[in-house]
């Protein structure tokens, strides 16, 4: 009971502190912008721990964060093997192939306005479809190992990137293209020096959407059959054995991998599109 009350008191105090911090001048410097969300995250963990221990919630329903952390610490080799199988082999390989293919196809269809007008509505429609549904079909075609997972990821990331890239290639203004024409720039010079840089903000938008889709695709595909390693496999078997601390450990690792992947793309975006208004200021 004390734990329960303690966690509620902690939450109230931390929230008051957060409100004070957010409205103070501290919130405007970089440290404050990190400290406030960090404090919020910490509060959630403390309340979670306090409520689970205070109400004595059984571990098969919701394990406390400390137990999950302990599980992560003791099963690092298993977690690492799962990450390699699902994330590096399945998701990243499929992501690179899918985004690369979308990039090339976008440049190809950009040369034909007719194809472009036809493909954009179709691509937009397909991008909104529940594409995860192709997972069972691709598992049937490519077998249980990571190749089928990569194939699912390829299809999932292809259309969002394609649609964004095509929009990006159309983002240059008439005036800019005319200027390149007065320089008597060739098609490739115009593409490399004007249109590709102008398309980058759109491309990165697509790449960011695709990065979260990639991990989802790789994990879903494992529900339809996988070797005895992989995050999706581990989650579904551990749920069956009611080893919920392991499930949460996998989720934490998946969150970490997903955030790191996303963060990496944002970093590259900052380096490559430093000139864009959204990156300045």
């Amino acid at each position: 009971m004390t734990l329960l009350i303690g966690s509620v008191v902690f939450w109230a105090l931390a929230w008051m502190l957060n409100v004070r911090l957010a409205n103070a001048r501290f919130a405007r410097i970089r440290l404050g912008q990190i400290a406030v969300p960090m404090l919020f995250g910490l509060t959630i963990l403390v309340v979670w721990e306090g409520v689970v221990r205070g109400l004595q919630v059984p571990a098969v329903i919701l394990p406390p964060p400390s137990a999950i952390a302990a599980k992560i610490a003791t099963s690092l080799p298993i977690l690492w093997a799962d990450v390699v199988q699902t994330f590096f082999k399945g998701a990243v390989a499929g992501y690179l192939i899918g985004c690369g293919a979308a990039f090339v196809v976008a440049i190809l269809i950009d040369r034909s306005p007719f194809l472009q007008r036809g493909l954009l509505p179709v691509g937009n429609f397909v991008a909104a479809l529940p594409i995860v549904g192709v997972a069972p079909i691709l598992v049937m075609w490519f077998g249980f190992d990571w190749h089928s997972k990569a194939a699912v990821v390829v299809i999932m990331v292809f259309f969002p990137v394609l649609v964004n890239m095509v929009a990006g290639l159309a983002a240059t203004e008439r005036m800019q293209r005319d200027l390149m024409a007065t320089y008597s720039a060739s098609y490739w010079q115009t593409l490399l020096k004007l249109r590709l840089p102008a398309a980058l903000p759109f491309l990165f938008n697509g790449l960011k959407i695709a990065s979260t889709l990639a991990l989802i695709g790789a994990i879903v595909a494992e529900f339809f059959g996988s070797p005895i390693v992989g995050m999706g496999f581990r989650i579904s078997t551990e749920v069956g054995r009611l080893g919920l601390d392991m499930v949460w450990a996998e989720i934490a690792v998946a969150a970490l991998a997903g955030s790191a992947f996303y963060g990496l793309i944002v970093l590259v975006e900052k380096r490559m599109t430093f000139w864009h208004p959204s990156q300045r200021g």
Partner: protein
Amino acid sequence: MSRALPVLTVLGLLLVVWYSASVLMNAQWVYDQAERAGQTVTFAEVIPQTMAQERPLLPPPHQVAAELWKGIAGQKVTSKRSLVYHGFVTLQATMFGFALGIVAGVALAVSIVYSRAMDMSVMPWAIISQTIPVVALAPMIIVLSDRIGIDGKMIPKAIIASYLSFFPVLVSMVKGLRSPDSMQLDLLRTYGATGAQNFWKLRLPASLPYFFAALKVAIAAALVGAIVGELPSGATEGLGARMLVGSQFGRPLDMWAALFAAAILAGLLIVLVGGVERALRRRMGVPA
């Protein structure tokens, strides 16, 4: 009209690619059969045989269409083999999760716009929450709600659907509620408008275009969530369950029919949201 021809051309191209791919992929089976029977077949004989297999690697479009038609119109709507029935099960969870996602997204957006502390503490975590592959949570949500004693298979599916659909609503609503510029806000201040009037008469109407743009994304995401929620739960009803059963029992035609039923459902839902948006905009006096 100027868009119809290119779109039809692209669709026609896709059909051609599909047919040739299914000939190529299914041909192997025909050759194997012929070899086992000790016969040789010419390529011209192979083609018709690739078009009507029981378990094709890649069914040609007309086979999928026939299976889809059989599933939708071939039986009573209440039959367990009717895709309409399974689609309805999925649709229920989708709409429930969609509604939940809208409510959560709008409520969070309002509190973020009005409280700086909420903005600074919740917004980063909301973004991080989307990099967590929600499907990793799906099996656990299902077991959890079962343990807690929530009846029925719809609630866990709806939770997953709402988790996927709340984020686009949240992001767009924050943007939309902040979209009135200082001139408009100043005007309302000169009228002596209260905070509530400010919200109902300026911020909320101003956010509607953003809201509907988000809804189109959110409803597609909710459908994905509902389908994914059916996969690990051992569900026997719903489009996701049809795909899973088709995969486990080696019935590719079932899988393809369920996949296309899901695609049609997604298309209908997006069109529906678009229709509601147009009707509402006309009522608000926005020129179409």
